[in-house]
């Protein structure tokens, strides 16, 4: 079975800065990998590279069968879902309108969006609220609803736990677990190991634009995902 993500000595230069300085990584389909590392280690760049947003400056990268060095990244982007620092939502539109727009853009039906919003507890008056009025955590949930509804093969989450309250984190954890159970590959960058590692199959440490360590999730880390999560 071919890896979902395969990077060999991948170099990615943003501006004049080599954000990724030779990354080696292989992720199997359906695997959940947590990326950890200090600020500036290149986690966001790695995720954006895998989303097909950045050009590869050196080395090799193969994501969902797409060779990132070869040029056409637009077909990859449709199969990938990313939750980044910016939610990519329109402040003046309501939650429901944003979700509907995003789904129709992705070629999905609006009904799937309603379903996802309900599962993420975006109901009632919240749906009719303009996104600009929501808190950061709530905005993250809206973006997550879009992601859940789109059901991409590869999930790229950039510090998704930041700013979320306990309930939000639970909802996020459940969504990620569900996606992984459904066969999606998940790459999650996080500063909060207690939240992220329980979801992971492997933990990859990144520093200075390179992978410094890889380890499987140990029993001592936390209960396996799919186990007890906060109700």
């Amino acid at each position, binding site marked *: 079975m071919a*890896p979902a993500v395969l990077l060999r000595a991948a170099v990615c230069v943003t501006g004049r800065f*080599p954000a990724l300085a030779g990354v080696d990584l292989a992720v*199997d389909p359906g695997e959940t990998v947590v990326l950890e590392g200090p600020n500036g280690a290149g986690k966001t760049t790695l995720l954006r590279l895998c989303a097909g947003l950045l050009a590869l*400056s050196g*080395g090799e990268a193969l994501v969902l069968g797409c060779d990132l*060095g070869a040029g056409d990244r637009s077909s990859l982007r449709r199969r990938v879902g990313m939750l980044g620092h910016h939610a990519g939502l329109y402040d003046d539109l309501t939650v429901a309108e944003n979700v509907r727009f995003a789904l129709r853009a992705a070629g999905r039906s609006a009904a799937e969006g309603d379903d996802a919003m309900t599962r993420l507890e975006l109901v009632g008056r919240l749906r009719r609220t303009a996104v600009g009025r929501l808190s950061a955590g709530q905005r993250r949930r809206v973006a997550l609803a879009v992601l859940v509804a789109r059901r991409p093969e590869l999930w790229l989450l950039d510090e998704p736990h930041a700013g979320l309250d306990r309930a939000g984190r639970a909802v996020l954890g459940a969504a990620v677990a569900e996606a992984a159970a459904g066969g999606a590959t998940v790459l999650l960058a996080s500063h909060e190991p207690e939240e992220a590692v329980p979801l992971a199959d492997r933990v990859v440490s990144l520093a*200075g*634009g390179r992978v410094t360590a*890889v380890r499987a999730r140990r029993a001592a880390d936390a209960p396996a995902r799919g186990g007890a999560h906060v109700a």
Partner: protein
Amino acid sequence: MASPPPAWSRRRAVIVHVLGAASVLAVAITVWLGLWVTPPDQHLRDEVRLVYVHPPIAWVALYLAFGLGALSSVLWLWTRTRSAAWDRLAAASMEVGTVFTALTLVTGSIWGRATWGVWWAWDARLTSTALLLVLQLGYLAVRRVPSDRDARARRSAVVALVAAVDVPIVHFSVDWWTTLHQGGTVTNPNLSPTIHGSMAWTLLLGFVAFTLLFAWLLVVRYRLVTLAEWREDTELAEALHERWAEGGPVAERRAAVPTATTATAAPGALAGARPAGPPAGS
């Protein structure tokens, strides 16, 4: 540690110097012939002398420099012919072209002053050239925005393309604009003097001289662009080394990628990948 800058072979350096000397010499001869040797025109008297300088400069500015800049931009944009050389050529050509466009305006203005007594007139050619200058300045402004090479090339190429599309439209509209203007005009459509004899030769020499001058400046500017990119790459290599130092010791590569399936992606699938930067694990 750093690789040396790409150097010109001795022969190429000599050729470039010869080109430079020849162009300067040709321009000087044109000026000499134009100012002292050729006879003044019957109607336009001494003012005609600018015809040896203004039209050649204008031709170089618009068709040669701008045309080359637009063409190489399109070649860069088209993925099948994309190559960093086109981007460098476009940058060099547009920049030298801007200088020539400005010179076109200056010589045109001087000619206008000599012929009509005004420093500026809204005739078709001057106006179109002024607009061309602004378009080229826009191109230069976009090139100065700090970004990575690919993004910069992309943006500049689009600006060049749109400008190239705009130039004929501007030319037509301004042309109609001035010819339909009635009453109180300062422009004299009969500006082209009859050219014969020594004047024709001088004019021809003028075209050759300024074309040579453009070629020389273009080559030198292109070289500067190449050197600037080399320096960026060197700085990048140093930045890479610093970046690695940031990360501390890196685990052995093979063992660091445990996976249930060993990397079974056929190496062929990644064929055509660009060579990696400086070797890792230094």
